[in-house]
């Protein structure tokens, strides 16, 4: 039994669409079976809320009088990228102030970075600006100092080149010293194992072959709506998959875009990762149209079906050895304790499961109330047939 996205949208319009979250659908199919559920259910919603460093926002200030072709600019002391047109700027989530002590005061605290700036901008707070230019005949102004809010500027849109990793490493430390990583503090001698995925709620885990999530897919992004615009950087669809179709390590990613002016600071949080740097924690939710039974089966994936690689961040990760020291499923990770060799290791999440759950529920309520319609993708994300592989740097270097 096949459905089309148009048919599902028609049901959304009439308030008759049947929608479940990726967590709820597991129980529904246990009771009703796949065949019947595939007929009855129209949409499954997913969610994730975790630090996503490859994030940022384009803004256009509007022109000053006289005009200025900005070549260097700082917003709240955070340098922003100006290598595009006159008053277009890009705020990178991990950019930190030139005065940040970084890890010279180890471990650095990274209290304010690009992610915090984006959060403040979305919250409507006043942003201080300082900008410089060399001046041209058509853009004579050479210096600018002032302040603005998101309401004072023309455009502000989030444009994240890589979000929503499909599966991720579980980080451990087999060394003798405590280390500070982007996956948190790792205590020596396998003192803890940290992981970062919403597991069974994670968007790409519920559509592992990218059958419905593609270029043009409308999504929940930062509390507003956004779109998938491309496969994300480091998209790696050819990673080995287990019998449930789930990649056994980090694989698919998406690039996303959305109107920052309609987002909420609750779902775009500036993030200070001790000893590592600043980032942005991004909320993403993707709805999956249940067009047939296979798509439904994928959305019924459970934490015990998803397996992640355990990687040693004291040596193997920094040195790109590619070695993994084990594999572990998310049900075990979420139990709070796993076994590595003969050692029991406590586990901790870096992304928020309760917030991922909340996103999947918000998206469900948007669809049920006719506020959010599904889109057909205009092009599929490259799948395993593409042969695309994420490779190490192959240029010459010292």
């Amino acid at each position, binding site marked *: 039994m096949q459905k089309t996205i148009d048919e599902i949208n028609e049901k959304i319009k009439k308030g008759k669409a049947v929608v479940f979250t990726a967590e709820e659908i597991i129980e529904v199919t246990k009771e009703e079976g796949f065949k019947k559920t595939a007929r009855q259910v129209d949409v499954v919603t997913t969610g994730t809320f975790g630090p996503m460093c490859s994030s940022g926002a384009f803004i256009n200030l509007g022109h000053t009088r006289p005009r200025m072709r900005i070549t260097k600019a700082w917003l709240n002391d955070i340098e922003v990228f100006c290598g595009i047109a006159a008053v277009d700027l890009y705020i990178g989530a991990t950019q930190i102030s030139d005065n940040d002590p970084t890890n010279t005061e180890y471990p650095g605290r990274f209290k304010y970075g690009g992610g915090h700036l984006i959060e403040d901008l979305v919250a409507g707070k006043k942003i201080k600006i300082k900008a410089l230019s060399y001046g041209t005949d058509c853009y004579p102004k050479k210096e600018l100092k002032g302040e603005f809010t998101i309401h004072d500027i023309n455009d502000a849109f989030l444009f994240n080149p890589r979000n929503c990793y499909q599966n991720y490493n579980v980080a451990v430390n087999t060394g003798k010293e405590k280390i500070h990583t982007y996956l948190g503090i790792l205590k020596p001698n396998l003192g803890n194992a940290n992981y970062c995925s919403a597991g069974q709620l994670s968007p790409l885990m519920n559509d592992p072959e990218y059958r419905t999530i593609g270029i043009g897919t409308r999504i929940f992004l930062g509390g507003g709506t956004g779109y998938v615009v491309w496969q994300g950087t480091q998209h790696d669809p050819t990673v080995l998959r287990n019998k449930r179709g789930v990649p056994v390590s980090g694989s698919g990613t998406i690039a996303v875009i959305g109107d920052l002016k309609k987002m909420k600071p609750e779902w775009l949080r500036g993030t200070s990762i*001790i000893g590592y740097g600043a980032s942005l924690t991004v909320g993403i939710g993707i709805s999956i149209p249940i067009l047939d039974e296979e798509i439904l089966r994928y959305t019924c994936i459970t934490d015990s079906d998803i397996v992640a690689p355990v990687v040693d961040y004291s040596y193997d990760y920094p040195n790109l050895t590619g070695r993994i020291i084990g594999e572990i499923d998310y049900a075990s990770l979420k139990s709070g304790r796993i076994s590595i060799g003969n050692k029991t290791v406590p586990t901790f999440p870096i992304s928020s499961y309760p917030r991922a759950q909340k996103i999947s529920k918000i998206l469900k309520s948007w669809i049920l109330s006719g506020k959010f319609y599904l889109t057909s993708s205009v092009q599929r994300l490259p799948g395993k047939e593409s042969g695309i592989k994420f490779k190490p740097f192959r240029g010459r270097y010292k």
Partner: protein
Amino acid sequence: MELSKRVVLHFPEKLVEKPITYELVKNYNIVFNILKAKVAVDDGEGMLLLELTGTDENIGKSLKYLKEIGVKTEPLTRDILWSKDDCIMCGICSSICPSHAFYLKPPQMTLEFEPEKCIGCEECLRVCPYNAIRLKLM
């Protein structure tokens, strides 16, 4: 009845040289464990985080004695301020909390805080990426 109580003592400069903890042991048979100490140079006020173990009656008497000599005491739980509005419920604080005062509850993975387990080490303050754990006093 034996019990343990964690208290924060703030004592003015004039008392810094007084052997307060010795008095507690000698007069009230209190077993104490120093969890944290700060001797501030600028304002001259000292701070001591103690775990007092003893009988209900003796702990009461010790607190009364401390008050009489001019030491301000506060229960420790008021020190850590967990802002649920700012918290996203990741598990980073729980990963470094040595006394398991912050912990996650499976399967929903909600973050819980049991103030009576907190030893005031302030590790959580340093690692929280969202500034959701702050210090209320000191």
